[in-house]
């Protein structure tokens, strides 16, 4: 009985077999390259994220997880490594991957910090879905550059027009909400990270 069905469907079976195999071949052939692309994409941000060129990202031994009354927050943390003297690579800073609500959808950021997590060294936007032409201007390098050099201890604030105080960031015009969202994500991630920094240090 069963073989009857199978006989009818022999073409399907054959094709399934062939296609499965073919796709696996594709995966074998291009998989590594795709992985590489993804990696490169993330890495291409690093030089701008951390002081010093030629840095490389290595995932830290553990991620930072914070659980408080607002729920569980998890950040992926990377060490920024740089070729130092004698070919030994030395750590020059940290990179934290953080995610939070933006105007329309979640925004995913990479925040670069110096070794002691005292200064923000840079910011990259990995994923966002803000309004094209408005909120999505947070991707612009010129806008992100404002974050470099800000003190990691302070609370960043997006303001309209020229910023006056040190902790102020000039909001993208017409997109204060998106800008403030970025600030909020950075503020929280940096605070959470700094709280866990000793533990991470201890790992070394």
């Amino acid at each position, binding site marked *: 009985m*069963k073989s*009857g069905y*199978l006989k*009818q*469907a022999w073409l399907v079976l054959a094709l399934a*077999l062939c296609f499965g195999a073919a796709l*696996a071949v594709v995966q074998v052939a291009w998989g590594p390259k795709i992985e590489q692309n993804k990696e490169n994409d993330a890495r291409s941000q690093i030089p701008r994220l951390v002081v010093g060129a030629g840095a490389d990202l290595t995932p830290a031994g553990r991620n930072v997880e914070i659980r408080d009354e607002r729920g569980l927050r998890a950040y992926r943390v990377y060490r920024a490594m740089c070729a130092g003297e004698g070919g030994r690579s030395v750590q020059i800073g940290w990179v934290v991957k953080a995610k939070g609500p933006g105007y329309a959808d979640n925004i995913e950021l990479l925040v670069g910090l110096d070794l002691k997590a005292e200064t923000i060294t840079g910011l990259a936007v990995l994923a966002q879905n803000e309004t094209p032409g408005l909120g999505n201007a947070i991707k612009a390098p010129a806008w992100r550059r404002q974050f470099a050099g800000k003190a990691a201890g302070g609370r960043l604030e997006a303001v309209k027009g020229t910023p006056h105080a040190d902790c102020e960031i000039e909001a993208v015009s017409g997109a204060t909400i998106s800008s403030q969202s970025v600030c909020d994500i950075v503020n929280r991630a940096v605070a959470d990270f700094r709280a866990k920094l000793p533990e991470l240090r201890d790992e070394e």
Partner: protein
Amino acid sequence: MAWTIIILAAGSMLLLAVLMACVLGWANKTFCVEVDPRIERVNEALPGANCGGCGYIGCNEYAEAVVAGNAPADLCTVGGTSCAAALAEILGLEMEESWPRRPVVHCGARTADRLQRNEYRGEPTCAAANIISGVQGCVYGCLGLGDCRQACDFDAIHIIDGLAVVDYEKCVGCGACARVCPRNIISMVPFKAEQMLAVICSNKDFAKDVKAVCRVGCTGCGLCAKMSELFTVSDNLPAIDYDRYDAAAFVQDIAKAVEKCPMKRLFYVGKPTDKDLAATADEELPDAIQADFRTTVDKTEWHG
């Protein structure tokens, strides 16, 4: 490593396919619902115009009715005889010979021929005007507001000087106009020849009452019936027996009747002969196409 993945991938796919094939095959057997395969075939043989000319909601409905034996196989006018033959073959039926039916408007009064007309202010359709009295004296004749023109999908009937006129070149005989005419003055006549004789009046009143409302109306004098047995007069109006109609056999009777008819209400209708065409060769055809202001007939079909 590479081979592992390939084998695993191919293996999983195969397994999946086998699983699905078995389940579906089994389900196909177990959950099978009987459908008469002929419905499908009839459906394919029908033109799929869904025009409703057959009297059913759409081709599919008709197909079901035909297969169920509730409808004759020759109702589809768009598909014509070839379609009917195809259906008959599918159903194993014998086909009788059938003549194509074409509409005849049984009214011949142009605007100037109609008496006792009043200005009418209301919905400009025949159906609406038909329930108002006094639009025109004759309560039988064409109202000339063109419901039939609206109903015709083939642009084959037009209102010319207040009277509906069929364009037999374009008409496919779907009968939509006949169904829609509120005065029922369009009948579907079996066209045994290119041109058929017809009585072009519908007024059943007494001669004096007819004359009061129409310059050309049939008075029911009965002369035609005296000339030929093809005609029978009842209710002051002659009718032609189309079952027995044969232009060749009755040619003389008909000629006499046509000649004697005092109101000249007997006409040949149908496709124009070569002679007619030659006579009107240099006349411009009226441009009868008009914008349709009201209906959104949505013809999109789903393709997904």
